């Protein structure tokens, strides 16, 4: 099967669901991921201060903002990879620190913006996603195998399972990393620039994948995306500006409040076309 074929196969069942839903599903329990009065920084520099967010299961939230506004920092703080100056993060109702390392790893999967150079095969990388489940000895049960297979099918990377990462192109490698994250089968997914290196058709596939994870899988997906059009296909937005959090809410709320223009400090014009929101670059002279 070529990967085009896999992609087509993955695309078909979701075709029916490709309408815009601006309302996230109702929250009936504790938010999947939340933070209160979060304050983080590096060294002397404080990047974010006093941020409070609720992220529900079954929705896809995109973080947008100019460079240096703290998208990656927020993600890392929520993943527990950055020590907090102040505030707390809770995962499925409990404080992040109260989960054991293994439990946390099973419930929260993280995709880094750039991964280290490695010479493992694709299937081994994806297999590492099952680390929290299968442990040090890598004794794989059938559910591990099944999870890996599902993940690789969904990202269209099954055909190069036995190839070493160094022999793959940037886009192919990115899909292997995504498969690794999906293989964890965690209820919370944190992704830093998941569509890096991918060409537009594959970016679409990933967007579709994230939506179906959220809608069908009930996963809480949070991703930092710098491509505005891609970000606008999510359910909710977190908009960060150079002064901190500008707003957090549905796309509609974001557009009504013109959060994007405030965050980027310049006129950002969004248009709706055929049920999809698009960013229209202003090629004439600018500003507020």
């Amino acid at each position: 099967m070529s990967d085009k074929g896999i992609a087509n196969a993955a695309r078909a069942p979701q075709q029916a669901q490709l309408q815009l839903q601006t309302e996230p599903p109702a929250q009936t329990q504790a938010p999947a991921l939340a933070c209160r009065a979060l304050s983080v920084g590096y060294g002397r520099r404080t990047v974010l201060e006093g941020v409070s967010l609720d992220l529900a299961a079954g929705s896809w939230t995109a973080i947008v903002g100019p460079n240096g506004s703290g998208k990656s920092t927020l993600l890392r703080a929520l993943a527990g990879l950055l020590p907090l100056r102040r505030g707390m993060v809770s995962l499925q109702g409990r404080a992040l620190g109260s989960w054991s390392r293994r439990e946390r790893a099973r419930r929260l999967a993280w995709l880094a913006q750039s991964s280290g150079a490695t010479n493992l095969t694709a299937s081994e990388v994806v297999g590492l996603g099952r680390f929290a489940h299968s442990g040090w000895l890598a004794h794989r049960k059938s559910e591990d195998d099944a999870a890996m297979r599902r993940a690789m099918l969904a990202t269209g990377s099954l055909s190069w399972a036995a190839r070493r990462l160094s022999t793959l192109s940037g886009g192919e490698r990115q899909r292997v990393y995504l498969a690794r994250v999906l293989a964890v089968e965690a209820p919370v997914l944190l992704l830093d620039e998941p569509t890096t290196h991918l060409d537009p058709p594959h970016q679409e596939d990933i967007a579709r994948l994230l939506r179906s994870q959220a809608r069908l899988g009930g996963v809480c997906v949070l991703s930092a995306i710098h491509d505005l059009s891609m970000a606008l296909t999510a359910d909710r937005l977190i908009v960060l500006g150079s002064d901190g959090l500008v707003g957090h809410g549905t796309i509609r709320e974001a557009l009504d409040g013109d959060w994007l223009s405030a965050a980027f400090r310049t006129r950002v014009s969004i248009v709706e076309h055929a049920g999809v929101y698009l960013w229209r670059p202003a090629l004439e002279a600018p500003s507020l």
Partner: protein
Amino acid sequence: MSAPPASLGLGAPGVESRVSSPMLLWLAGCLAITMLLTGASLIVGTSSIGTSVGWLLAPDAQGSVILWQIRLPRTVGAWFAGALLGLAGAVAQGVFRNRLADPYLLGTASGAALGVTISLLAADTSIAGLAWMGKIGITGAACIGACAAIALTIMLSRGVLQTANLLLAGIVVAFLLSAVTSLLLLTKPEIWRAMQVFLLGSTGYLSWTSATLLGIVFCVCIVPAALLARGLDALSLGEDTAQSLGLSLPMLRLTLLGVLSLATATAVGQVGIVGFVGLVAPHLVRETVTVNHRQLLIGAPLCGGALLQAADLVSRWIIRPAELPVGAVTACVGGAYLVFLLWRRSRDE
């Protein structure tokens, strides 16, 4: 390694695993080469008397002393020392995520050299020093010196959490201890020759005691290393990613650095400072077979053992009955291999 290959994380689900058979071939090959080298070591010695198979099977009294008390423990000890160095090199390259890491990057070589210098000086200067030296010997002094250097490095870098700090501290400690060694040598230049022998490595006096010690330490080191190998795989994806997968980085680093220290200190104590084995063995394994760290941490010791065995053989044979320092042989071979790598790189560009 009794579990079937699938449980080692090899091969994708549903995809034929082609990786395990090269590894098995490699293991078989290494073992075969080791057997061959052991046999050759029994035959090669100081003169032509030992080369006939008949002598090998039915040696006279002196011949059997030479065979079983000198040649066999020497080659077995050399194998274990090489295996320890190969393992330490593979662990160092994994923990520091740098293909050019070798076992001595925490300052162990300089520490061992300083230990030996102090013990030689003490023996020459006073009777008390002589008695103390007699008790622990050069091997003990080298081992203690190596461990002291590692402790100093970890203290300087304030813990094992930051690999960059560790590397830097290792370099500083190496320079510092080398300088102290040089200063001490100036006071008594006569021990230079003994120091040179140590610095270039020597397998000459490996007895059954040494070989057994090396063997025990090898078993103690390889078990935790093989168990933690998957953690190194995760670490190769990045520290954040590894942490998010549920890996405890401090525990991993501490344990593996402990393995590295024990393996290197023991090997250096017994055979002196033998370079390149720890660097080249993991490279050779990576070139020919492997991918993941479990294979590497098992293949590298096997390769290292065979390498040092071969080097010991060459050092004894080439100018017999005189002997080359084994470190000089490994330096030549290792250097040639690195030159070959460079050439291949430039050819590929």
